[in-house]
């Protein structure tokens, strides 16, 4: 019998290490796999049996002897028995492309990755010209998964068309939005997929150096990525003369230093250059003048990871998922006050209500849901009347909301939405790079004005002032930090005004 216990951040945070030690003490050496993203079941102990991979969870070290006993007799007799893991409906109902391998095996085992179709995309790419690769990406309809949803193929074409001795591939792994962990899950459960995608990007546009800009809040991902890069280099999937092709691609992880703004691509490039993470004015686009002034592809982890499956299975397969102009799959991250939180990969088009009620099974507290914030700290708070909106970029834009990086944070009916609006401004105070005035000063004034509104100091005029301030920030800020901080504030004002006036919970 083979045992699996994950070593991703969430499983470790819930005690996976002590479960692993209990298994070792009992003579059962576990494989340390990645997580499947069913976080409410972590630590999820999987056992390979004649029936396939069966699961138990959430498991603590105290449960281990009982589970080992049950395995000798009748596994289903144990109260943590979950049945075959692939048949758990939370997982079996998903359409996993990017996360197909997540949790299956040891994430840094190169053999495991190759057994599960890893590096097939890269091998295909090595037989193509740069233009042919870019065409595949264009045909797939892939849009950047970091939040802005810009067509990846068009960005790549721009970099390919630039004449330059040096070009760069930069992976934005500064996943700072609250409620998001999709990038982390790729890096901790399937890091080779990202490495493969970046290598393909390098081949496509003619870049020989790549950087993964990783936030320092992810120490587990940092460790695993470095191991994976070393092994990929050793097996010649990175480095010089990749698989005898004569092509070169080097890859390095660089750590951020706790600045949310560095998730903005131009601020990230400044930081990679060793400077303060000050946002740059655009143009020039990073595709033309990016890192160290050279043409640079900056893509999110999920965008680059998706490249591996597009090159492996073909653009058409990917294109066949989704709706409208939102093609492929979306990595939905269900978080906050939720009973069953985790990673849900689905084609675009599922409604927010389906995600929260069917997958999430409501709040963790058991109380009614009051508001849902989608798309991170710069995303709107949505009241129940908007939960039937399908999750695609255009449908969300139509209700002044955004899907962003796909994070969903659920709040129950104890949430104070005026306090959340104030926090949105406060966060902008703390994390603004300070370059433009609407963001740097506007956010400070925003906190003050919200305080006055809540304290009922000249409330009507201060509400007018707050809207005016939001207009200034939206229209006058250099980047999305100041430009979108008004989204959560305005949505709270529109849908949860009673929280600002202390008139009870009559949502309007």
């Amino acid at each position, binding site marked *: 019998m083979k045992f699996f216990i994950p070593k991703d951040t969430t499983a470790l945070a819930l005690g996976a290490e002590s479960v692993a030690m209990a298994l070792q003490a009992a003579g059962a050496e576990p494989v340390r796999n990645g997580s499947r993203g069913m976080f409410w079941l972590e630590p999820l102990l999987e056992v390979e049996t004649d029936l396939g991979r069966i699961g138990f969870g959430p498991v603590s070290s105290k449960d281990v002897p009982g589970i080992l006993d049950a395995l000798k007799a009748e596994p289903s007799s144990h109260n943590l028995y979950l049945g075959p893991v692939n048949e758990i409906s939370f997982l079996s109902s998903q359409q996993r492309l990017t996360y197909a391998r997540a949790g299956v095996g040891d994430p840094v085992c190169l053999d495991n990755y190759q057994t599960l179709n890893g590096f097939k995309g890269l091998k295909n790419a090595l037989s193509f010209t740069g233009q042919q690769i870019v065409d595949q990406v264009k045909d797939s309809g892939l849009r950047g998964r970091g939040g802005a949803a810009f067509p990846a193929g068009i960005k790549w074409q721009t970099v390919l068309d630039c004449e330059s001795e040096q070009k760069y591939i930069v992976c934005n792994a500064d*996943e700072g939005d609250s409620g998001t962990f999709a990038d982390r899950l790729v890096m901790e459960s399937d890091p080779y997929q990202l490495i493969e995608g970046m290598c393909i990007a390098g081949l496509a546009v003619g870049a020989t150096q790549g950087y993964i800009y990783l936030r320092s809040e992810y120490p587990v991902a940092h460790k695993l990525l470095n191991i994976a890069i070393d092994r990929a280099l050793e097996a010649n999937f990175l480095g010089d003369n990749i698989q005898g092709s004569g092509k070169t691609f080097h890859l390095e992880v660089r750590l951020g230093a706790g*600045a949310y703004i560095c998730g903005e691509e131009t601020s990230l490039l400044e930081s990679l250059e060793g400077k303060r993470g000050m946002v740059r004015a655009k143009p020039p686009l990073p595709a033309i003048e990016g890192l160290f002034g050279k043409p640079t592809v900056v893509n999110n982890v999920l965008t680059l990871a998706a490249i591996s499956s597009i090159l492996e299975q073909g653009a058409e397969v990917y294109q066949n998922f989704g709706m409208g102009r939102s093609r492929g799959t979306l990595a939905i991250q269900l978080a906050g006050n939720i009973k069953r939180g985790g990673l849900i990969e689905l084609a675009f088009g599922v409604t927010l209500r389906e995600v929260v009620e069917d997958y999430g099974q409501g709040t963790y507290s058991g109380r009614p849901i009051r508001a849902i914030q989608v798309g991170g700290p710069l995303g709107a708070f949505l009241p129940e009347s908007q939960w039937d909106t399908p999750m695609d970029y255009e449908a969300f834009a139509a209700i002044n909301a955004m899907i962003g990086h796909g994070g969903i944070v659920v709040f129950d009916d104890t949430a104070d939405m005026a306090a959340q609006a104030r926090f949105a401004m406060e966060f902008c105070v703390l994390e603004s790079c300070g370059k433009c005035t609407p963001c740097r000063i506007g956010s400070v004034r925003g906190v003050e004005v919200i305080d006055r509104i809540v304290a009922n100091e000249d409330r009507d005029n201060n509400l007018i002032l707050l809207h005016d301030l939001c207009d200034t920030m939206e229209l006058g800020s250099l980047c999305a930090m100041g430009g979108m901080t008004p989204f959560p504030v305005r949505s709270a004002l529109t849908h949860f005004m009673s929280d600002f006036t202390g008139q009870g919970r009559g949502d309007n």
Partner: protein
Amino acid sequence: METGAQNTADISHLVTQFKAVPGGLLPLLHAIQAELGYVPDSVVPSIATGLNLSRAEVHGVISFYHDFKTHPVGRNTVQICRAEACQSMGSRSLEAHAKETLGIDYHQTTADGSITLQEVFCLGNCACSPSVRINNDVFARVDQDRFDELVANIRGEVEIK
């Protein structure tokens, strides 16, 4: 600037290691902090000279990023996540509890030198909030009792050593 030899940490080996690395200032600062626990003002001139930057530029970078500390910190760093997912699960009251029981505010160190308390915005553990990071370990679903247990644990280990 006067920098007596006794309070000038020798970081020349790190400067040598990173001075030719493109964009090497951040990796260098991380390396200095890993070795000394913080980035003392006294090392700024040698960083500036080594990387051919002005001292103002080096200072500007150190002060921009939340991670870099310019003063010694406690033996353990405890970070409480203040971001939205954790707020939805009660991190605001956890923050208040932590400050009260430790007797310090954010960016301060307990009198016994065992703990520096910091805020953090998202540890990527948002499906099992509230989250707390202690040094390099993240802990999930940290309520007040669990917080007290974790604090007692790190303080106990310090005493044993």
